């Protein structure tokens, strides 16, 4: 033990400057990563800003009871899972299909040009995207209602019709991120050894057969890793997106209000950090179980595709 301490001191003496370089990042991670852990305990308190975490009274599971006894608990959990699963599934399929089509393009210039435009929405903030969406869907001025009118259909009051919003959000999310996924999948396709294709062509395979039997199977590892990474955030409902677009529009809550926006409102609008923390803790724990469980399943099927 003493010996180890001595060698640690020697290491510090020898490479002190290098450890100095890592200090800012380490301190930041210590504070914003590790020091946040004790605050999770306030989920079991009647937390008060004045008395703080040390002197607020403990109330057991009351905060959890408050959340789970309301019908909204199920609603926001279901919406979070529903939206994230749809984002992952639709997003992956769309990006993969697009990557395969891009790979068949003959003109490099055209490929680069169209990739640039498809990637562009990725750099827009969700606030900007909410404006774009509004210019399309606004009840009085929006383009979509103008088109409906031209087709002699009744205009739709989009921002008061929750039934459409699952699809709208999925399309919007795919629209914004397809460019980024395209880059990754296209790289994965380009990385496939050409000899596979040559062998396939010699055997007389058609373009579609090459895609079906070479490209798609060889892309599976990339798809698995990306999906698993996305699964890790499945309980987290991209607050930025939903709150920028939906805000506090209660009419749309039934289909698109998620845990993150619920927590945000408990914290900032209602001002009850303890209740917000209870929901947040539930979110973290379920999220962790889901990642761990899905990773186990993937490992059973094919160990190479597992994340850890």
């Amino acid at each position, binding site marked *: 033990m003493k010996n180890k301490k001595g060698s640690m001191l020697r290491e510090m003496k020898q490479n002190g*400057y*290098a*450890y*100095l*370089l*890592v200090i*800012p*990042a*380490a301190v*930041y*991670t210590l*504070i*914003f*990563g590790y020091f*946040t852990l004790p*605050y999770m305990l*306030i989920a079991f308190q009647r937390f008060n*800003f004045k008395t703080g975490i040390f002197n607020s009274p403990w109330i057991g599971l009351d905060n959890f009871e408050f959340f789970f006894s309301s019908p909204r608990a199920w609603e926001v959990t279901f919406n979070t899972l529903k939206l994230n699963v749809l984002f992952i599934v639709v997003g992956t399929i769309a990006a993969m299909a*697009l990557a395969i*089509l*891009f790979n*068949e393009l*003959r003109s490099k210039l*055209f490929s680069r040009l*169209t990739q640039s*435009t498809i*990637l*562009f*929405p990725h*750099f*827009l*903030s969700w*606030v900007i995207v909410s*404006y*774009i969406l509004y*210019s399309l869907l*606004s009840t009085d*001025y*929006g*383009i979509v*209602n*103008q088109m409906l009118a031209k087709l002699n259909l009744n205009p739709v009051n989009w921002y008061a019709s929750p039934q459409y919003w699952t699809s709208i959000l999925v399309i919007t999310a795919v629209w914004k991120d397809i*460019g980024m996924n395209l*880059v*990754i999948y296209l*790289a*994965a396709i380009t*990385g496939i050894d050409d000899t596979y294709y040559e062998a396939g062509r010699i055997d007389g395979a058609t373009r579609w057969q090459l895609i079906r039997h070479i490209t798609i199977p060889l892309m599976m590892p*990339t798809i698995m890793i990306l999906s698993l990474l996305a699964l890790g955030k499945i309980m*987290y409902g991209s*607050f*930025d997106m939903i709150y920028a677009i939906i805000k506090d529009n209660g009419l749309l809550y039934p289909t698109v209000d998620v845990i993150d926006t619920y*927590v945000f409102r408990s*914290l*900032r609008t209602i001002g009850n950090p303890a209740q*917000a*923390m209870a929901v*947040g803790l539930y979110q*973290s724990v379920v*999220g962790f179980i889901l990642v761990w469980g899905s990773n186990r399943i993937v490992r059973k099927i094919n160990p190479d595709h597992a994340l850890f």
Partner: protein
Amino acid sequence: MNVNRSRLFDIANAALIGFISLLCLVPMLLVLMVSFTSEASIQQNGYQLLPSEFSLDAYKLLLGTSPLYRSYLVSLFVTIVGTLIAVLITGMAGYTLAAKHIRYRNGLAMFFFITMVFNTGLVPWYLINLELGLRNNIWALIVPSLIFNPFNLFLVRNYMSQIPGSLIEAAKIDGANDIFIAFRIYFPLCMPVLATITLFYGIGYWNNWFNAIMLVDNQNLYPLQYLLFKLNSEINMIQQMQSSGVLVSDAVLPQESVKMATAILTIGPVIFFYPFLQRYFIKGLLIGSLKE
């Protein structure tokens, strides 16, 4: 026959991809065109891709008001200062984690990695910020959540790991210490990855409104994105901008076009830097994903 079919496929494929790429561009174009449309025309015809009546009223009003300038300054300051510090912190830590003569580098890597996997969520983060006094000041927009990202750290570390360790040994023999080696030898060699994280951080800062909605109530500190967010949800914001600025000739307040014009001004820098952004973004994605 077969050649013809293949050619037909190529044409259909190019047409489809062209159409999809238009779908990504046209909605943005719509916002741009609406910002140049007169309020009267909007009220009569709705938003149009080709406005029936052009007008610069929205921009006249916006450029004559102080809230927009102030928010632009806030956003610029936050983005530039934040990105510089963030890249510095990340680059320095990346060196230590990559240098093979550092004994505890793997332990340190684990220390950073754990925080990536387990997320404590919004509430502890918020309370820590209050504890640190990061509320209603410019640092509340810079320090929380953006100034250091472990994902970027690992990006830098992986890139730096490829540099042969003999370089460090040689420099050490010449009497250089680790700080000198990091700044004068490693950083210049790692320009591509540093450019990539500069872009990641820069875009993160420019597009961020989360820190503002959580930690800032003072209107003087609104970054552009948050001003834009407020503009859409609070009608009186526009009237406020009107009263503090010049009066527009038209009696009607160009409410709709002002919103869209603000959106356009907000993405201005993104469009300006887009070729650079795109190049290093793709590079960064590839470094990151190939490492998997």
